[in-house]
C-alpha cells in the first residue's frame, strides 16, 4: 500500500497529546529514519499540531499546516493508522455524545423517578456508546451535577458509591470522579 497522506483539514483528527502519550513520546517503533527525525516536522490536521524532534513527539499549540513529503511516507504505518482510526472513532463518539446529551437534557420531564430519567431513549443510547463514553460522562459530571450514575454503573459494571451514600448526588459525583481519576478516565 502506498503512502496515504494526511491532509490539512482532512476528516482525520489527531489528538496530539494522546498521540504522544500512546507512543510514550517515542516514535522509534514507527521506523522513521533517524535523519528525518532530526528535522523538525510538523503535521497539522484540523489545527492540531505535533512536532517530531529528535524522536520525540510533542504537541504544539498551533500547527503550521506544513507536512513534509518524506514524513507522509510513514503515515500508513499500521500502528499510526490504527491511532488515526481510533481518533476518528473517538471524535464520532464525542459528537454523538454531545447530540444525545443535548436531547436528554432538553427533553427531560419533571419526573422524580431515577428509572424514568435513565430510560430516556437518548440516555439509553449514551449507555450504548460503551466505554468510550466514560471520560465524556465524567467530564460532564464534573462540569454540572446530573443523573449520570445509572449510565456509569451500566457501562462499567462498577459502583464506587457505598450504600450509605446512595441518593447524595454531590457525594456520588465526587466518588465517581475519584474513581475516574484512579482509572485514568479523568485527568
Amino acid at each position, binding site marked *: 500500500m502506498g503512502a496515504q497522506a494526511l491532509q490539512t483539514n482532512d476528516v482525520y483528527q489527531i489528538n496530539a497529546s494522546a498521540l504522544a502519550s500512546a507512543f510514550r513520546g517515542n516514535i522509534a517503533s514507527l521506523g522513521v529514519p533517524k535523519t528525518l527525525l532530526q528535522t523538525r516536522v510538523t503535521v497539522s490536521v484540523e489545527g492540531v499540531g505535533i512536532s517530531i524532534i529528535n524522536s520525540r513527539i510533542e504537541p504544539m499549540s498551533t500547527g503550521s499546516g506544513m507536512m513534509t513529503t518524506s514524513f507522509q511516507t510513514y503515515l500508513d504505518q499500521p500502528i499510526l493508522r490504527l491511532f488515526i482510526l481510533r481518533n476518528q472513532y473517538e471524535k464520532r463518539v464525542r459528537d454523538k455524545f454531545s447530540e444525545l446529551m443535548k436531547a436528554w437534557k432538553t427533553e427531560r420531564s419533571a419526573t422524580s423517578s431515577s428509572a424514568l430519567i435513565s430510560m430516556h431513549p437518548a440516555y439509553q443510547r449514551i449507555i450504548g456508546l460503551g466505554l468510550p463514553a466514560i471520560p465524556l460522562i465524567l467530564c460532564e459530571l464534573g462540569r454540572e*451535577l446530573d443523573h449520570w450514575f445509572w449510565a456509569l454503573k451500566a457501562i462499567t459494571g462498577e459502583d464506587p458509591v457505598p450504600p450509605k451514600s446512595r441518593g447524595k448526588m454531590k457525594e456520588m459525583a465526587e466518588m465517581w470522579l475519584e474513581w475516574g481519576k484512579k482509572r485514568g478516565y479523568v485527568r
Partner: protein
Amino acid sequence: MSGNWPSIQFPNLNDDNHEIQSVPTQEYNCIAWAAGDTRRWWWPDDPKVGYGYWPPGVKREVSLDAFVEAYQTLGYEPCLSPTLELDFEKVALYVDSGGIPTHAALQLANGNWTSKLGGFEDIEHKTLECLNSQLYGESVSYLRRRRRIRPLA
C-alpha cells in the same frame, strides 16, 4: 413567572396559582423535599443500576404501599383527606393512571402546598389539583404527622 420545566406537562399551572421558590437543582426530588431532605434524591430504584436513596427497611419498589411506608419512617400516618388541620403537617401522594406513585407534595401552614418538580424548581401551589397531569396523575393518598417546627429548606 414560568419555570424551567416543560409547561405542557402541567396544564393546570398558571401565574395565579403557583410561585417559584427555588432555582432548579438535581440534588433532591419531590419525595425528598416532602420528607424535609434537600441533600438526597429519593427513589426506590433497583440497586443494581439505580442510585436513589430509600429509607432502610422499607420495601424497595415503586408502589403506593412502599411510599406510604417510607413516610411512616418519618412519623407520618395515613389520614383521610388533604384538608388543612393546624396541628398537623400533611403529605399528599400522587399516582398516575396505572396507580404508580409519581409525586409527593407537602402542605404548608397556610394551607398551600409545596412541591419540587423533578430536577426543576420548588414551587408553592394553592391546590393539589394544580399539578394534576398525565405525568403526575392525581393525589390519592394522604399522610399526616403532628406539626413541629422545622425548616422547609
